[in-house]
């Protein structure tokens, strides 16, 4: 039974995603303003203008971990930011705590440079592995934040409590920190220490807000639809439970 429900939900989401991606509307749906993404876009432009660097932390999770979706979303965001800042004197640096994500971050940045027509400016060490354990990864990310003229740290991905160290390093260097995590403990830490924290599933909206991809926007709308379905299902189940019906 559970497998059938899961299969049905997956098929419905897939159909809806394809339909909303392919249908082009002149009046698209309205997305609420998220100040963190506005600031991130502005920070990307400012880093190009004032010759500083953008540091993108992709988190410690891998693609095949339970939080692989967060890593996928952070890679999509890295692609958008890489295209926007490829012409900077100091190109962006991406750090991660997973070897697979580190290799993919190199490939993503290279593709971003190629898309922007600046392939010759790509440096392979722009995508780095910070460390194999969370706190060793945090130590590596802190080194980048403190030694490489970083003006803005974008920590988007699978983080744990170690993100607090990255926030501390950002504050010491007077750099802005725009962070999003899926772990509730990390979200609590970021709420207390980040300049612009993002809560909940706003992490998955990052690529849609920073860039302009039809598939990203469609996925936001699919999430909204599914969320409403879940809400209705929960309310219906609670009502049934209260009335005593099975």
């Amino acid at each position, binding site marked *: 039974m559970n*497998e059938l429900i*899961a*299969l049905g*939900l*997956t098929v419905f*989401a*897939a159909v809806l*995603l394809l339909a909303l*991606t392919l249908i082009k509307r002149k009046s698209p749906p309205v997305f609420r303003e998220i100040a963190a993404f506005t600031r991130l876009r502005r920070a990307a432009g400012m880093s190009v203008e004032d010759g500083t660097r953008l540091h993108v932390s992709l988190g410690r999770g891998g*693609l*095949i971990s339970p*939080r*692989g*979706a*967060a890593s*996928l*979303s952070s*890679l*999509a965001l890295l692609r958008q930011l890489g295209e926007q800042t490829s012409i900077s004197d100091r190109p962006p640096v991406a750090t991660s705590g*997973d*070897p*697979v994500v*580190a*290799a993919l971050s190199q*490939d*993503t940045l290279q*593709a971003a440079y*190629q*898309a922007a027509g600046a*392939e010759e400016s790509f440096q392979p*060490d722009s995508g*780095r*592995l910070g*460390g*194999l354990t969370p*706190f060793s990864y*945090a*130590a590596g990310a802190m*080194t980048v934040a403190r*030694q490489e003229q970083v003006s803005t740290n974008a920590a988007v991905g699978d983080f744990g*409590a*170690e993100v*607090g*160290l990255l*926030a*501390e390093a950002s504050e010491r260097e007077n750099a802005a920190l725009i962070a999003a995590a899926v772990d509730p403990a990390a979200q609590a*830490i970021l709420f*207390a*220490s980040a300049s612009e924290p993002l809560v909940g*599933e706003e*992490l*998955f909206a990052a690529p849609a807000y920073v860039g302009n991809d039809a*598939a*990203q926007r469609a*996925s936001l709308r*699919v*999430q909204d639809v*599914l*969320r409403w379905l*879940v809400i209705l299902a929960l309310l219906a189940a609670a009502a049934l439970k209260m009335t005593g019906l099975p």
Partner: protein
Amino acid sequence: MKPRPVAAAIAISVGIIILLGYFLPIPLLVPVRIELLHWAVILAGVAVLVGVGNLFSVHFQKLRRREKGSVYSLTLLVAMLATLLVGVLTGPDHPWMQAVVTAIIIPAEASLMALLAVTLLYASIRLLRRRADTMTIVFLGSAILMLAASISLPLLGEIPILGDWVRPWLIYTPVAGGARGLLLGVALGALVTGLRALFALDRPYGGK
């Protein structure tokens, strides 16, 4: 750069096979699915070596260019090579390896954790100076309440009412409900993100 249709085709086909094999008990898909899973395990293990190589390369370049902090890069490179040598030669069960873990890795990471505790305490104290809105006050108040409910006082033990009534209610009612909501939202986001990768709408493997 030309798009990579082969990579996209492989990603899509493998994703569909694994997904279908999970939901539908098709006998033909089971061995294929298992074999693909083994390949993924091997590739993940190799990816660790690639990541270590990337780490070595970055710090070696930093040392070669004599950049700021290259001394620490030298320390890292020496420690990495030494640990690799000992582990390859003696094995992970050897007391030397245990000594490296016990004497270096665990104390270093535990120190970082302790540093995090001070950092979080400092950030909590200054939170209201930086941002004094309603949600911030609620956040700080709930944190203080939960910590206070976990305290055991000398000679008294757990604080009455806080320890035996407030804390369990907080954990089982608002915390559990909020946790479920977060898990649902993250799951929906993961579902749609996975579908985007499945349909090649999102290609983390590069290409346009």
